[in-house]
């Protein structure tokens, strides 16, 4: 049974609507992710290092007047990347606490790209897959394919048509030189897109 080495993502957001929206976007990412939401960064103080998430996405509003606290938490989990979610203009000092900023009106693709950039060092797969020039979307389709999803399920998951999925599959086969699903599983394993448990 194939499972993936999951990256832990923590969303620090009070609003259910915004939090829900972010979680839905994460589920469309190519990386294997586990996503959780908390409402306040207090929960992160004194967190044991081995439980530190790979990525924190936090509403920048929560950092107002708490910059020192945020910096202190960051120091205690030096490997963790932090993305700030910003609703509009915010001052430079506030934004500098974060590794990158997600704007509230960023498109899904932009958000995914920013997340991928932060997670890339953890998943060298991206590098290898870029050698075959697989696009982000193709990588996503490949990921779901090798995890056993059928075309229809992939289409539903990524909110695209089944014809688009088939078209991506054709491109994946052309670029990698591999047509069969079983062969693509081995390819994904070699490129660390998935791992065996």
């Amino acid at each position, binding site marked *: 049974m194939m499972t993936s080495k999951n990256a832990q993502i923590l969303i620090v957001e009070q609003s259910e609507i915004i939090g829900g929206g972010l979680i839905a976007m994460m589920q469309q990412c190519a990386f294997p992710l586990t996503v959780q939401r908390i409402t306040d960064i207090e929960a992160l103080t004194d967190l044991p290092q081995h439980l530190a998430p790979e990525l924190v996405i936090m509403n920048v509003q929560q950092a107002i007047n708490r910059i020192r606290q945020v910096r202190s938490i960051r120091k205690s989990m030096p490997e963790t990347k932090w993305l700030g979610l910003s609703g509009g203009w915010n001052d430079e000092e506030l934004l500098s606490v974060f590794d990158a900023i997600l704007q509230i009106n960023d498109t899904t693709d932009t958000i995914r790209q920013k997340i991928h950039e932060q997670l890339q060092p953890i998943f060298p797969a991206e590098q290898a897959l870029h050698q075959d020039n697989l696009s982000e979307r193709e990588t996503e389709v490949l990921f779901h394919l090798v995890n056993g999803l059928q075309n229809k399920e992939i289409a539903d998951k990524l909110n695209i048509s089944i014809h688009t999925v088939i078209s991506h599959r054709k491109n994946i086969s052309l670029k*990698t*030189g*591999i*047509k*069969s699903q*079983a*062969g693509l*599983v*081995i*390819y994904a*394993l*070699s*490129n660390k897109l998935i791992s*065996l448990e």
Partner: protein
Amino acid sequence: MKRLLQEGVVRQETKMADLVSQYPTLLMLLEHLDTGFLLHDDTVARYAETHQINLDLFMVLIRLYIGDKPSKVPEINSMDLPRIVMFLKRCHQYYKEEKYPEINQLIRALYEMNHSPEIRMIDRFFNEYFEEVLEHLHYEDDVVFPYILKLIGEDGGTSTTDAEFSVREYRDHHSDIESKLSDLKALLLKHVEVRNDRIIRRKLLLKLAELEVDLTIHSLIEENMLIPAVEQIEQGNA
């Protein structure tokens, strides 16, 4: 019977020994035809005559085995069919008894050198693939070929094949089994990390390439010669 135009390097007068020297893959053709390797000073025509093979057919087969795709397929009549069926059956034997064990052994040896999960999966991949191949080969040996021989009255009256079978069913059954082989080559050549296994990998890739060439020609013969010839006979009988 209309003679094909003599084209390129293969002519009736070409010496068999010269041809085989230059294109060693022709040895596989001779083995599958079961005509023996001692070529003496025979020309292509003389060799075909000695071994009672339709010359046009023989020349097309030679061209296939030297990597040349002939533009015209000779008309195969029912007299050639038993020869072709025997040829294909001998190919099957070669795949089952020689190629499969050879490649299987090399994959095992590869795993000895490179204990990665990818190689273990490649072992499984190849075995699952070959099971598909075997199923197809058995289908041909047990259903298709007896049907064809019965159709032309060459079965000696012993065949018990279902008379409802038609060659169109076979055409549908004839799946693309070469693509998995090509996947295997791509994985070994492009993607799976090399760990102390370069030499075995090279040997394995060469063997896979040999198998692929033979399987491709095998499929071409079945699809472009065998099936059309049988369809014609079926239509003639209808």
